């Protein structure tokens, strides 16, 4: 880890301060709760899929956590709106690979767009779970998992 700015970029700080789509979605078709029991971070992700074509019509989140987990959740919702379920799952996999250093968004093809600003997380192994909590919760929502998803199981 050289420079803290690689992690705490302006976009991330800004989304932490003013998270987008930060509210309950009453008419959600999919919902899941994600927790990191080691630090107490907790987010709910709400989805409404289009009944005809299955695209993500609406996506929102609520909860509390550190700047990395909250900004990650906020930017996830912004980037997933209008995407198909398959695209969302693909992005989840790519995001996970990026933050664990298995995908270099600068040299390899990907579908993450602006989410590549989270690539600095790979230099902070203890913060990977913060960045990926919202994405694990998204996957649980798409899978319609009943139990709260945990970073520790």
């Amino acid at each position, binding site marked *: *880890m*050289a420079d*803290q700015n690689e*992690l705490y970029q302006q976009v991330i700080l800004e989304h*932490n301060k003013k998270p987008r789509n930060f509210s309950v979605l009453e008419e959600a078709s999919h919902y899941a709760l994600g927790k990191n029991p080691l630090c*107490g971070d907790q987010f709910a992700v709400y989805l409404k899929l289009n009944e005809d074509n299955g695209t993500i019509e609406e996506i929102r989140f609520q909860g509390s956590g*550190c700047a990395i987990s909250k900004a990650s959740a906020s930017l996830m919702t912004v980037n997933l709106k209008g995407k198909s379920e398959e695209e969302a799952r693909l992005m989840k996999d790519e995001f996970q690979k990026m933050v664990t250093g298995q995908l270099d968004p600068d040299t390899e093809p990907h579908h993450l767009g602006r989410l590549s600003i989270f690539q600095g997380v790979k230099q902070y192994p203890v913060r990977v779970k913060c960045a990926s909590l919202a994405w694990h919760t998204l996957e649980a929502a798409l899978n319609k998992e009943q139990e709260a998803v945990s970073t520790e199981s």
Partner: protein
Amino acid sequence: MVTLMEKTATHLDVERIRADFPILKQKIHGHPLAYLDNAATTQKPLSVIERMTDFYMNEYATVRRGVYEMSARATIAYDEVREKVARFINAPSSSEIVFVRGTTEAINLVASGYGRPFVQAGDEVVISAIEHHANIVPWQQLCQEKGAVLKVIPVNDDGELDIEAYQALLTDKTRIVSVNHISNSLGTINPIKAMIDMAHQRGIPVLIDGAQSIQHMPIDVQALDCDFFAFSSHKIYGPTGIGVLYAKRQHLNAMVPYQTGGDMIESVTFEKTTFAKAPNKFEAGTPAIAEVIGLGAALDYINAVGYENIQPYEHHLLTYATQALLQIEGLRIIGNAREKASVISFVFDDIHPHDVGTLLDSRGIAVRAGHHCTQPVMERFHVPATTRASFSFYNTQQEIDALVDGLRMVTQVFR
């Protein structure tokens, strides 16, 4: 602040102390390491590291089994540490010193070995609102198993236990009180002598979780008159994997074994086993021999530095750090007890402790961020987590200055 320094001038030469701890010399991310996570675990002086290395290189053998010279010598060295521990906490006899893996195992041993025979349905166990999970969960499990009731001493907004409420919780149904000496997340020093006396008036035994106290102040189990006292070697500058349970002899005799197997028996047939006397009854299996030797070296080190030097110096660090931290805008200290050890938990309303921890780490400053295994404390004070800086006598005022500078940087980043 200058007058304060003068008032607390001590004989402790911190630069000489630091030279004893090789790990403190390193740089982290290009900055000198400021290790401020001493409530989690303490670093090891060279004398401990060298003693353990020497033991492995020249003296290692099993204990209490071999008839050969090496084993006999290892056994003597091992038993000497038991004597040393007894002297260190002023236990009447080394036979009241049980070696365990750490404070967690010590409490589990009492909850099981004492709790199972003596706590029945409808009985009550008293703990406090500021316990570590290690002094909550074993009792909770026992109560669930037995149909007993767990009673919790409440804490005020400053982090001090409500002693009147404690008095009211002590009843004819109370079978044991188990409280910490010092809270690991708030730094509160509890009035354990008075609490022990109050319980004893009703004939109730008391366990003191000393995980956070023995590294800061001298312990005299006879003066306290506690029934049980538990601590971990790794928090008092010794190795991990070894700890101590002191228990009064009558309790050890009445307790049932927690684990069974080799070394804790008198005789075994397929029909019946008779157990060895305490402490061996509670030490099944080959023990952590080199770790016991290392603990002995750690206690020697503390004796050489001297609590009379450690206490005023650490108190000075606490006062200096408290005043400096309170100058930082938006910082709130959680835990403002009048009697505190050199442990400071703090929060910013809109900056998460994990972000604080990561940003401080970029400057080589090691602090703890999280719930510190005290989730009920976090809930009580309405915070998800805190950042905690905890100081040892090897820490310096300069390290506290670096912490304060680092926290100002954190508030800049999140402005």
